[in-house]
């Protein structure tokens, strides 16, 4: 059995849902995760400062320090767990980087998995600054640190809400060649991306696809129009 092309070339991981349809996850590498960690660390320090000052002002001293120690403990160990479980896999740092922690079957992360992956941070952190975690991530297929591997979780990119289908402006125009499914899809993809490309690049790509229009030697703008027309035709416009 061969893997789909994007799983060979890209880091995409496909997970089959119970409904029998594949969901694709894009695991995030060490760099965005390090940034996410840095943001979270800053926020935690900020929390300490805010609570430290507020408690110091509002409460008698030793009661304040006692409470502060409890907060310190809670933030140290449960900051990630609470955010991940209650906010759909994201901590403030993760959502700043567009990341999300999920179970490796793509379902939202739950208490036990989140608790495990975050308690084991200690082991991943060794010997300094997530050294073990980095090695584990580089050795595994989906960039999983030890905590992720043990808890069965992944950190993936949040999929953004996709763009609306671009208006088709070109006049639909049937292809002059019999096209395979792959070729049809390439033309569709070109039709959708065309608006975001420069004129020169558009002309260049259209020239490559020229044969489907059945005409050669036209001006670049005409070829482009005709290729986009074929693309619109494939989509079903008549």
């Amino acid at each position, binding site marked *: 059995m061969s893997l789909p092309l994007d799983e060979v070339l890209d880091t995409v991981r496909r997970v089959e849902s119970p409904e*029998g349809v594949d969901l694709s996850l894009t695991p995030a590498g060490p760099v965005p995760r390090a940034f996410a960690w840095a943001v979270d660390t800053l926020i935690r320090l900020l929390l300490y400062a805010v609570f430290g000052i507020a408690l110091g002002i509002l409460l008698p001293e030793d009661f304040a320090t006692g409470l502060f120690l409890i907060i310190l403990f809670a933030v140290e*160990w449960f900051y990630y767990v609470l955010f991940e479980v209650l906010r759909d896999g994201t901590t403030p740092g993760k959502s700043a980087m567009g990341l999300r922690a999920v179970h490796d079957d793509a379902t939202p*992360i739950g208490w036990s998995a989140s608790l495990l992956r975050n308690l084991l941070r200690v082991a991943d952190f060794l010997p300094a600054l997530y050294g073990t975690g980095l090695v584990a991530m580089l050795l595994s297929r989906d960039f999983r640190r030890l905590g992720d591997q043990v808890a069965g979780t992944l950190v993936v990119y949040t999929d953004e809400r996709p763009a609306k*289908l671009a208006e088709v402006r070109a006049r639909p125009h049937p292809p002059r060649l019999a096209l395979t499914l792959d070729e*049809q899809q390439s033309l569709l993809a070109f039709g959708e991306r065309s608006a975001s490309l420069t004129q020169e690049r558009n002309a260049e790509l259209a020239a490559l696809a020229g044969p489907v229009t059945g005409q050669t030697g036209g001006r670049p703008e005409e070829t482009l129009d005709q290729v986009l027309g074929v693309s619109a035709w494939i989509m079903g416009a008549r």
Partner: protein
Amino acid sequence: MNQEQFMRQYEPVWLELESILNPSGRRRRARGAGERIGDLPNLYRQACHHLALGRSRGYSPVLVRRLEHLVGGAQRLMYPPGRLSRSRIKRFLTTGFPAEVRANRSLVLLSALLFFVPLSLAFVAAHRDGAVIHAVMDADSVERFEQMYATPEGERVDPQMEGQSDFFMFGYYIRNNTGIGFQTFAGGLIFGIGAVFFLVLNGFIIGAVAGHITGIGQGDAFWAFVAGHSALELSAIVLCGSAGLRLGHALIAPGRESRLLALRRNARPAGRIVAGAAVMFLLAAFVEAFWSPRPWPDPLVKIVAGLGMWALVGLYFSRAGRDDAA
């Protein structure tokens, strides 16, 4: 069916699903979706079907991506994480936790040996020879411990930090002791070495302090102080150790599974034990901060109460959650 017809036909389904996923207006997702959540399974399955069709028919990437996004969002609503309800917590504490500990019996025993053997050895050594304590801690800490229990009869034992309130100590114990427990567990991931290390180290330190203090004749105050919380705190350390050892065992002797698979299968139960131990640390901190330093009950009463706690803890782990009918 070409793509345009496909889109025209099913657009209403997708729009409805989208309106459940991103309810408009200021109402929160849960509430907005609550009214029509009943439609979700049906709409979700339809969208799954459309996604599969769209992929196999080679519809345009933007359409397929939109369907993927829809299906992904709906799947998150369909399979939400389990909630931490009160009944779930109650079931865990009355049944799940003690049963898990019993199932883990041999590793708990091993962990207890790794903790109590060094503790006893250090106790005997430090009791005999006043210099031994200096092998495990610096002179300042030794002096602090010596002063801590050198309290005149009928006064409050002042633990470690001079003149701090009970509540301060409560926070201190929670952070310190539970942190040590969590570390012991996570250390198990290094082939069990970290767990063994923290168990033996803490056993040595606690044993040496107890031996030293008893050796210099302050045993009464010391034992009266530690008796109350010892049952909860020491067994919580041992349990965290056993959870760490379980990770180490899965790595060293995975049996017929791959190491990763063995680790993953053993990690959930180990995590449950740590969660239970965290609750015990919390209770221990409460006892240690608010009961242990009190001068008023007679030391004898406190020691008897402490032994009672050991009996309760033993009873809890041996009996709680057993289905006697079965």
